[in-house]
């Protein structure tokens, strides 16, 4: 990051209001995505339910990161903490929508931390998970991919 970019990021952080809604991202919980997660984490699949394949709930723990990545520079990747409440077990093949809100921000050790509440829902209108993540994140008001 150049000095100019850093100054703009600092300004954006200081001007970022707590309560800012973070626009949603969406993804399909495809077979491939679930298989990849199962292999990465050495988990076994849950039993099927009503003829539908279920995804491990741990896959939802990354939702806040994907959401943050869409609006913040998180390349320093100092992820300080995460809370996840599992509301429903995700179904393979469903579409997941993730939205969030900035609930706090603070500076510590020269780094800018953002605390964000995260909500994951599926295309059947079910809440899948509620989360809260804390991490170093430089706000990019323009959004877009890193």
């Amino acid at each position, binding site marked *: 990051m150049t000095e100019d970019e850093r100054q703009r990021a600092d300004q954006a952080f200081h001007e970022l209001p707590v309560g800012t809604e973070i626009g949603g991202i969406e993804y399909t919980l495809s077979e491939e995505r679930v298989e990849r997660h199962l292999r990465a984490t050495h988990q076994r699949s*849950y039993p099927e339910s009503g003829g539908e394949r279920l995804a491990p709930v*741990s896959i939802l723990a*990354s939702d806040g990161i994907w959401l943050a990545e869409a609006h913040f520079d998180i390349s320093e990747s100092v992820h300080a*903490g*995460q809370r*996840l*409440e*599992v509301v*429903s077990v995700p179904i393979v093949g469903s579409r997941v929508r993730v939205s969030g809100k900035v609930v706090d921000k603070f500076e510590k050790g020269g780094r800018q931390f953002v605390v964000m509440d995260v909500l994951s829902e599926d295309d059947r209108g079910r809440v899948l998970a509620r989360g809260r993540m804390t991490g170093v994140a430089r706000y990019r008001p323009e959004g877009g991919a890193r």
Partner: protein
Amino acid sequence: MTPPSLEAGAELDPISRAVTLEDMALFEPEGERNIHTDDEVARAAGLPAAIAAGVQFMSYIFDMLYREYGFQSVRGTVLDVRIREPVFAGDTVTARGRVTEVQADSVSLEVWCENQRGGQVIAGTAQVPIRGYPGGVR
């Protein structure tokens, strides 16, 4: 079937995994090149090598809880962790849990993942609903 741990002080069966760079890359979106997948990118960011994403180890804890308390207890589980030490490819990470309190319909635990040196990688608490006793899948 071994009944799940429902007494304060009881320790859950740990889960231990050797973390590989392949696991770390699989945890990220396909083709992603970042500090979690690429040593070169990590070094450019001031790290000695690629580090695993902290949430990767939340998966180990979720898996440990699922094995202990069964599928019926997955929904409603709350996991709250702080991410502490970085994990590098080649480290062995073990998920552990200890029951701290048993309520009528749920169990509270302290949970953590530690590396082969005994350092805590992530640590926090879990609240698990008790349903379908004795539904463990160990």
